[in-house]
């Protein structure tokens, strides 16, 4: 028994050590809660604006100075004081949902690709009756068509970020290699034209894997299938989709288009034209492009090809890049409501929140303060109105910047352009929004709550098979049939039926 006790003592002290370590971790997050209670002025409504940032999180003193500048405008214009709450992009969704559950104040937040779920779990405030009063100007800017993407059961639950929506599939490649081998990239009009180019590169550089994946689990080819409406699903986990002008929901994985691109990537894989570990690598496309071992990748961007190439080039150590369009942009509901600003259902000042949201779409001073911070300290502007960082500083060293969030906040077209981009591009982008072909089901959102059980199972099956197929590491002839039968076991048919039913309903009421 004695030994037994000794062992127990040791075990207990181990628990204690582990316990202490655990405690130390969990307290850090609460600090900034007390630090940010400034501006106790009672005559103004306080609005908390939670936004995702891809840049560094500024210190609370710096944040206070930016808030103060914004408040100078908002106090006068709408009688509101604002508290900025930047949250790192990778834990934005979970932080916001935890904060709302825990009763913390957040009045405005963005649905990161999750419009439907935010609405069905009651996170979003119904702003149908308020928008005409408190955000009239925003409504005029966006227009009914765009706002329709945020409507569910006839009620409006949010305002989508106004930005270039249309994603255009492109190939981004290294200019020097193309020139050296005499490849005319402008001849590449579709993803199928790429094979010969990749072969040529491979022939000249046998040790190179010419094509790298755009992100973990996809070579980017899935985005080149034309005219797909994902009906509220994630692009990388489609369940039932619409194709072209047909209003029949189809199984994405059963289409000939899907089989065709899988076969194409399989050829690439077998010939060593694509990274072998494309399905699992966690390296980003920019990292992979920075190495000498790559030539191009396939991705979809909402900027003109030349601008895209220029801005990516800056991120990969200024290797000269080119970009060529290999498909047409297509707009569906998700491409618009993926980034929707919502007033939280727990907000005590929804009117004030909406008024402030309106300013982020209409007041250039407000939105530029949120994006770039304070002029002179955080950025400088030249005579032509282009923004750059103060001398000797960059995005990571200035006290405040949220520049990389520019496509996610308020009205993108009101933001000062960065040096290196062209003002004409903005016109191209706004045109694309209007010209891009729109899905016939534009405005339809699917409510998955009746098929939740099937969704979990199907998501798992998709994650098991899709990356391998999209990166060529498995043989589509064998795997697609197996994949489809597993999907069917997991309940894909029920999801497709539910989608069709809701879509028919929506068409009837349209």
């Amino acid at each position, binding site marked *: 028994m004695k*030994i037994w006790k000794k*062992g127990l003592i*040791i075990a207990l002290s181990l628990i204690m050590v582990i316990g202490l370590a655990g405690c130390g971790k969990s307290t850090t997050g609460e600090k900034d809660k007390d630090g940010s209670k400034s501006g106790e002025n009672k005559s103004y409504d306080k609005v908390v604006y939670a936004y995702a940032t891809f840049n560094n999180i500024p210190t609370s003193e710096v944040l206070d100075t930016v808030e103060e500048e914004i408040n100078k405008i908002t106090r006068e214009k709408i009688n509101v004081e604002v508290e900025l709450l930047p949250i790192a992009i990778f834990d934005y969704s979970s932080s916001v949902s935890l904060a709302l*559950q825990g009763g913390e104040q957040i009045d405005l937040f963005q649905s990161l690709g999750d419009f439907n779920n935010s609405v069905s*779990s009651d996170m979003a405030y119904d702003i149908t009756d308020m928008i005409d009063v408190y955000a009239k100007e925003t409504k005029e800017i966006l227009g009914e068509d765009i706002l329709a993407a945020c409507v569910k059961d006839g009620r409006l639950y949010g305002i989508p970020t106004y930005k270039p929506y249309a994603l255009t599939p492109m190939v981004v490649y290294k200019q020097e290699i193309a020139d050296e081998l005499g490849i005319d990239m402008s001849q590449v009009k579709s993803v199928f034209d790429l094979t010969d180019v990749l072969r040529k590169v491979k022939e000249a550089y046998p040790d190179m894997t010419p094509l790298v994946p755009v992100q973990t689990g996809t070579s980017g080819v899935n985005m080149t299938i034309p005219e797909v409406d994902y009906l509220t699903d994630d692009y990388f*986990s489609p369940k039932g989709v619409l194709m072209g002008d047909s209003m029949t929901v189809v199984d994405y994985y059963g289409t000939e288009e899907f089989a065709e691109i899988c076969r194409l990537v399989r050829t690439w894989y077998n010939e060593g034209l694509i990274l072998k*570990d494309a399905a699992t690598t966690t390296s980003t496309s920019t990292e992979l492009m920075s190495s000498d071992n790559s030539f191009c990748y396939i991705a979809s961007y909402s900027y003109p090809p030349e601008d895209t190439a220029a801005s990516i080039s800056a991120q990969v150590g200024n290797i000269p890049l080119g970009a060529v369009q290999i498909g047409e942009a297509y707009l569906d509901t998700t491409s618009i409501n993926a980034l929707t600003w919502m007033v939280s259902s727990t907000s005590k000042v929804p009117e004030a929140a909406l008024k402030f949201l309106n300013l982020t779409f209409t007041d250039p001073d407000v939105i530029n303060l949120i994006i770039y911070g304070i002029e002179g300290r955080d950025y400088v502007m030249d005579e032509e109105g282009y923004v750059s960082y103060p001398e000797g500083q960059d995005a990571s060293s200035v006290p405040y910047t949220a520049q990389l969030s520019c496509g996610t906040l308020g009205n993108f077209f009101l933001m000062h352009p960065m040096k290196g981009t062209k003002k004409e591009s903005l016109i191209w982008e706004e045109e694309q929004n209007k010209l891009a072909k729109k899905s016939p089901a534009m405005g339809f959102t699917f409510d998955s709550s009746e098929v939740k*059980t099937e969704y979990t199972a199907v998501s798992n099956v998709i994650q098991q098979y899709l990356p391998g197929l999209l990166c060529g590491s498995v043989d589509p002839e064998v795997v697609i049939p197996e994949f489809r039968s597993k999907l069917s*076991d997991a309940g894909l048919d029920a999801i497709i039926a539910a989608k069709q039913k809701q879509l028919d309903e929506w068409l009837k009421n349209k």
Partner: protein
Amino acid sequence: MKKVVSKKNRGLTKSGPLLLIALPGIVYLIINNYIPMFGVFLAFKDYSYVKGIFGSDWNGFDNFKYLFRQDALLIVRNTILYNLAFIVIGTVCAILVAILMCELGERFRVKIFQSSLLLPNLLSWVVIGFIGYAFLNADTGFINKTIIRLFGGNEVAWYTTPKPWPFILLLVYLWKNVGYSSIIYMASIAGIDKSIFEAAKIDGAKKIEQIRYITIPMLKPTVVILTLMAVGRIFYSDFGLFYQVPMNSGALYDVTQTIDTYVYHGLMELKDIGMAAAAALYQSVVGFVLVVTANAVVRKIDRENALF
């Protein structure tokens, strides 16, 4: 009467300091494990942010359905089999290491071996995942480019070949955890009365016999208590091991998917709090039932060693 009181007091003075040592751990358990238990309500509710935990509508066992689908059975099988393998092989290896370590004798050497065995335990799974990646990467990995090339075999696309993965995972698990769990056994061995060994030596027992007839029987209580505790967690899995080490490769899901990763993959898109809570409740209820059963069995066989 007086005598009884003083005996009681003596008990308290004896265990008082121990209780004090345990206090931070107990407080931690209350804050982190008991208070959040109110969350079990969520498992039976259709959660709404407006209505809150207690105000949301009940939806019976709907949240549990996805865990009992046909295709979820494989995941349950994986979880249990891996954990059984970890318990059995892990315990055997840990005891082996502990005995070897105690036989080293000289303190300096023990310290060096002990530290190097403990080191992997301090690494995070993400780091270990990348160490594994450095070995198994299809394009530049150490095994494909060096070892296989040396012996002239065919290169293997490790992250899309499921067969070897049960062994890889077991190996990685042992590498990370054996050093740590052997400490407890070492402590138990150190607590064995030296005179027993001396007596055995005089009687002519060899090293192997000493281990066979003294060390291992003396370790039995520790083995039983640790195994019982591990049985309680048989429905859980080390998320890092099953998610980071296989690099979340879809092609391996048949052999790497466990309840925790299945729930994670399934709910990443839905973010349904109720369903997540249902999975946690399911795991802990099964764990609880198993511990109670296992303990009852132990008590039947050997009353002394039972947990309660």
